[in-house]
């Protein structure tokens, strides 16, 4: 295994980098350190931000009583990674997300199917057969970056982003798939919409998904979309 590298993001954050391209093994290392810090270690950080290949540890340097807080944090994390003898088991959530792939929601489906010479049924099938990993959340509160989509439907971002993508829109950008939690400008290829609220400030857990979740999509009809009742939908199927 490659040795992780470290760099600072200002006086109040250390980033640990496990690699430089999207790869599930790098992500597993990110999640492992994230999990270990958040569950078992002395809580000196303000935030732990997982990304594709990095974990950023945000701390308040003024509350660390050492000459150089950054040097102390770095040493702490280095020693933690070296003492990796105990591999910590992690619970993984499996979340099922209903998506209506109808053309009125899939704003880019027609174009994508034409470009890739596939039928709309194939698009839906290719998007729903894979179980995706939530590599990270970012861009907007609750926005999941998931991967990787089948190469037959992997499509680069729009050259001209839309000024408004409706909340719930499910999109593809390169090999990633994601869901817009809020109405927002955006450049992903939109292929459907979920009736679920990916983000709701009033919920106890405002974000539906968290880093490391496993996600599968199930197609639903327009009718099911219109009559969707979140209270009866069994979202989290199991933890393992």
């Amino acid at each position, binding site marked *: 295994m490659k040795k992780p590298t470290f*760099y*600072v*993001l*200002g*006086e*109040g*954050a250390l*980033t640990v980098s496990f690699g*430089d*391209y*999207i790869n599930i093994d790098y992500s597993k290392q990110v999640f492992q350190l*994230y999990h270990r810090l958040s569950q078992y270690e002395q809580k000196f950080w*303000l*935030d*732990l*931000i*997982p*990304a*594709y*290949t*990095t974990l*950023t540890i*945000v701390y308040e*340097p*003024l509350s660390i009583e050492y000459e*150089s*807080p*950054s040097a102390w944090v770095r040493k702490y994390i280095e020693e933690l990674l070296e003492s990796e003898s105990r591999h910590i088991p992690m619970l993984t959530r499996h979340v099922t997300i209903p998506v209506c792939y109808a053309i009125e929601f899939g704003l880019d489906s027609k174009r994508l199917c034409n470009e890739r010479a596939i039928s709309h049924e194939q698009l839906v099938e290719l998007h729903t057969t894979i179980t995706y990993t939530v590599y*990270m*959340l*970012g*861009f*907007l*509160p*609750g*926005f999941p*970056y998931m991967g990787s989509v089948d190469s037959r439907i992997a499509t680069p971002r729009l050259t001209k982003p839309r000024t408004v993508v409706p909340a719930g829109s499910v999109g593809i950008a390169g090999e990633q798939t994601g869901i817009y939690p*809020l109405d927002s400008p955006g450049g992903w290829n939109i292929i459907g919409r979920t009736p679920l609220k990916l*983000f709701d*400030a*009033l919920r106890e857990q*405002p*974000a539906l998904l*968290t*880093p490391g979740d496993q996600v599968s999509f199930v197609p639903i009809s327009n009718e099911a979309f219109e009559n969707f009742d979140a209270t009866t939908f069994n979202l989290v199927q199991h933890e393992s």
Partner: protein
Amino acid sequence: MSLEIVKSGLQDSIQDEGRFGYQHLGINPSGAMDRIAMNIANALVGNDLKEAVIELCFPAAHFVFREAAFISLCGANFNATLNGASVPMHHLIRVPAGAILKFTKKLNGSFCYLAIRGGFQLEDWLGSKSTNTKVKAGGWKGRILQKGDNISFRNRIHEQVDVKVYPWRAKLTDFYSDQKSIRVLQGNESEWLGKSSQRDLTKEIFAISTQSDRMGYRLQGKELKQTTKDQLLSTAVSFGTVQLLPNGQLIILCADHQTTGGYPRVAQIIRADLATLVQRNSREEIRFEFVALEDAERLLKNQQRSMEQLRLSCLYKVRMIAGID
């Protein structure tokens, strides 16, 4: 006890130290743009330094005090008046019930902070009172303040008829610099710039663009060029991260920054200079100067020591006056 807005400002909001612990869910921290001014405003009225305050931009809201209060104004100077008479910045002020607070002219700076002794009566959202306008949560109804908003505060004080400005003034020299240069650390992608662009980053002068807000300050200056073919995978960014945009211009991420980004990070403003930077106005010019991480840490600690001295001396004086606690 409350403070009512009688005229809307441009973009005034409730802010505190920011909302931490939720960036892994993409929830941005928000918080005051100028944490130093927020801290000093709180110190002057004897509050916890992290108490939520009102952040004002020019043109700022006008207020009427429904009850008497101790307040302070720090940061940008918008020529504040109480019942028509000018009041100074960085003082403890006693305000009688019915007084009208206006901001009449932008004299310097970008963000002014109004603190009230005892703080505002507001609910936390995820551990903070900062306003997150993106998800419409936190602060006052998750939005910028508008005419008719009536914000309660916690402390009742003895009724007085006149405005009183107490004579001591917070000294700012330990906290702000009047130099053109803003000190920065190397960014992790600094070396993706070509040699000449790396030189230009510290040699050239950059102007703060008019397209600057709480999310970021865009800069205008000589175009910088990335000479490597590297592409950054989305990763964490922070308040003060300087990114190179595809058009060769720079942006400094500010309080409402996204949690992650994919543009090369060519520098990082040191914490000790963030307040100085955010108080600069559009069209003002800055220059970057690299310092070592150890120096940045030392400067931050020095600032903190000065802040603690200020806090203690203010607290002593406020208690003498308020005659309570």
